[in-house]
């Protein structure tokens, strides 16, 4: 009797201990629940992937939507909503087999018809799509060849097409929601992604909820719905407030401004991932249609005159790399010979070229030509790192007797002025996932409409860029991109300055968040402690 009681007591104690101290870690499944909080300084213009021109919307669409093809954590193409695809030999016919049992957030079925409607909406002129339309631009027609089979016909071979399909703005949207919601779709979007739209409180936050039906994720995340119950984007305009809010635990993930990186790192509290920005962070772009930069020698001279190391050290606190060409090392197609091919810091060479161009020191050491001093104005945007970089370049050029004035414009105005060609020169930076960006920056068809802000017209360059887009052989494409990079450096359309490294800090309470090489945080596997 006593023995029974003792045994019962031991068993009870054991149960109690197990309840009080559950076996941790060993059997721990990632917990479902909690809230992952991201932050942005900018509010999205719309959450309609096909109508947006804002970068932050692109990032959010990674969570709300799926694309036909996606890239894994090594940057290799992998199945998205299409489980397989093939391309005809001429590069014109793309055939996709779609995944089965995929549902949109509104409950409707994802199928070939949805792909057709979605792509046709993106390219329709009345959608006025700034980005998605261009991503699907080469598509001539979409044919539904079965419930889960779709064929895209292209107008011409287009080698960046596969990469375009992985862009978050190429996500497939719900045809029913688009039709029913009309203009309101942008405030209540419907996709197939791991999170679905819940609420948008203007200027405050956007809330996505876990999609419990999500079973069709890409191979590099676990099968099944994400662990976090909600994904929230807080809109906090001030950098300093973002950092403070992160330190207080109000935010889960933060891309820190350069000024705070070392301090946050020194606390040792946070998980840190870094990646080199996909794109050249800052370059001085010349307008070749205006004095004094219509002269190639002057443009080349400035490439020799500016010392990038101190610009990087002071403006970015050294958190990045010096830039030499139109592509950064983080984009496929980058030619690593560019660092030695492009002009480096060489004051003697700079002075020699300036003298050849007729600029000679006059009164007070100021460079003169035909009685006019060497003075020009660059236009920049009110971005802290840009402003600091401009001041350093200004000081460096002053030593050569060149007077550079800096004028700041709000970003939208700046773009408009650049397109109109009102600037002598200006600062710019970009983020992109493929080398096809050179088409936007340098093809003469983009003068006045796209991003060809150097207003440089050159049939030879245009031809090279066109070849880079139609060439299907990847090795040959690499060679074309190498030649393009050399050619642009030869013509000295830019002074590339730096490409910044992004420092992404993650709270210790967040487990399993991964950084994607395309520069966003994969949260499917992220759970909160």
């Amino acid at each position, binding site marked *: 009797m006593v023995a029974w009681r003792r045994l019962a007591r031991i068993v009870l104690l054991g149960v109690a201990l197990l309840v009080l101290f559950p076996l941790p870690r060993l059997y721990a499944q990632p917990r479902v629940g909690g809230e992952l909080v991201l932050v942005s300084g900018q*509010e999205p*213009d*719309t959450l309609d992937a096909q109508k947006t021109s804002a970068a932050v919307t692109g990032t959010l669409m990674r969570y709300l939507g799926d694309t036909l093809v996606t890239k894994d954590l090594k940057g290799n193409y992998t199945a998205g909503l299409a489980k397989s695809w093939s391309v005809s030999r001429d590069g014109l016919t793309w055939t996709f087999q779609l995944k089965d049992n995929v549902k949109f957030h509104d409950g409707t079925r994802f199928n070939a018809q949805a792909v057709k409607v979605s792509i046709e909406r993106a390219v329709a*002129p009345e959608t*006025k799509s*700034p980005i998605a339309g261009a991503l699907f631009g080469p598509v001539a027609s979409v044919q539904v060849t079965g419930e889960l089979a779709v064929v895209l016909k292209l107008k011409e071979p287009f080698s960046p097409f596969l990469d375009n399909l992985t862009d978050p703005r190429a996500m497939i949207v719900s045809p029913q929601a688009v039709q029913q919601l009309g*203009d*309101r779709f*942008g*405030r209540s979007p419907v996709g197939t992604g791991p999170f679905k739209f819940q609420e948008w*409180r*203007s*200027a*405050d936050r956007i809330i996505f909820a876990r999609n419990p039906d999500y079973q069709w994720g890409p191979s590099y995340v676990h099968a099944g719905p994400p662990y976090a119950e909600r994904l929230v984007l*807080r*809109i*906090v*305009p*001030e950098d*300093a*407030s973002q950092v*403070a*809010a992160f*330190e*207080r635990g*109000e*935010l889960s993930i933060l891309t820190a401004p350069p000024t705070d990186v070392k301090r946050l790192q020194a606390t040792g509290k946070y998980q840190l991932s870094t990646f080199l920005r996909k794109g050249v962070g800052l370059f001085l772009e010349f307008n070749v249609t205006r004095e004094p930069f219509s002269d190639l020698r002057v443009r080349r001279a400035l490439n020799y005159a500016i010392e990038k190391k101190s610009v990087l050290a002071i403006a970015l606190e050294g958190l990045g790399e010096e830039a030499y060409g139109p592509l950064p090392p983080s984009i496929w197609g980058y030619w690593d010979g560019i660092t030695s091919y492009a002009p480096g810091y060489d004051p003697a060479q700079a002075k020699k070229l300036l003298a050849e161009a007729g600029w000679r020191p006059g009164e007070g050491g100021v460079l003169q030509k035909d009685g006019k001093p060497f003075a020009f104005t660059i236009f920049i945007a009110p971005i802290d790192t840009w402003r600091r970089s401009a001041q350093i370049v200004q000081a460096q050029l002053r030593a050569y007797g060149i007077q550079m004035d800096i004028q700041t414009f*709000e*970003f*939208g105005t700046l*773009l*408009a002025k650049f*397109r109109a060609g009102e600037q002598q020169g200006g600062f710019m930076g970009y983020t992109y996932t493929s080398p096809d960006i050179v088409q936007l920056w340098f093809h003469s068809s983009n003068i*006045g*409409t796209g991003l060809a802000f150097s207003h440089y017209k050159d049939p030879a360059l245009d031809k090279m860029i066109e070849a880079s887009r139609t060439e299907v052989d990847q090795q040959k494409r690499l060679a074309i991109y190498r030649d393009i990079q050399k050619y642009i450096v030869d013509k000295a359309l830019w002074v590339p300055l730096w490409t910044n490294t992004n420092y992404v800090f993650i709270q210790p309470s967040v487990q399993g968040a991964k950084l994607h090489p395309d520069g966003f945080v994969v949260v499917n596997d992220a759970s909160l402690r």
Partner: protein
Amino acid sequence: MQAYLARRFVLLVPTVFGVTLAAFLMLHLTPGDPVAIMLGEFASKTDVTRLRRDLGLDQPLVMQYVRFVERAARGDLGTSIRSRRAVTAEISDRFPSTIGLTLAAMLLAISVGVPIGVIAATTKHVAVDSAAMAFALLGLSMPTFWSGLLLILFFSLKLGWLPITESEGIRALILPAVALAAPAAAVLARITRSSVLEVLRQEYIRTARSKGLVERLVIYRHAVRNALIPVLTIVGLQFGGLLAGAVIVESVFARPGLGRLAVSAILARDFPMVQGVVLVVAVMYVFVNLSVDLMYGFLDPRIRYQ
């Protein structure tokens, strides 16, 4: 009184019309074609023509204005170009946050600034007076942006007491209200001090004292009450300052208010939205000044409304 009220309300009509005219003309005073600016560089000719027709810009200016006022009177301020939502819906989303912040800051500024001013004016100790005025100078000189960040560093990060970027509830209101109130409180303290000093030199104060009234009653019943009239004027004017300051405070504390709405609308060239915010804020300001005028009578019964 009622006749006065009625007349003041009638007088509001031209004022509000003036405000609508100013808000309306903003669109036309901007250099360049507003439609081209709104649609950006990629716009096609048909889009430009269509938007011009939608906005009624193809009609004579007077007709456009009449249409604008007519629609505004019906509570229709157009559709935001950026968010494609009704301007009134966007504004009413943001209105409570800004009003809450402004009122809290106003209350705080009055309840801190006025007593400091009274104490500084009536104290016999030079040190107290100097300290009060130094405090006021500090409050006035600190830019809101900077004081806001300092408050965050100390109360949110060091002490962990208050949230930084939350936007709902009283706790979230404290730090932004303090940051916004500081300059206003400083101004009120200085005005109150000089106004009380002015009144203390009046004959009726001497009378009150000589009839043997205790000093406390002299100060509070006779001096302060009379001294508050110029203070009230300043309170009305400060209201406008607080609305302007809200732009910065809302950015620092990430509050979804009218100030940020206005700034983002200006940056995005969202003209209907800018017009709407200007209109609402201006009308608000007009009404605040009206209520200040009406309050004079409560403080000083000699003021007759005729």
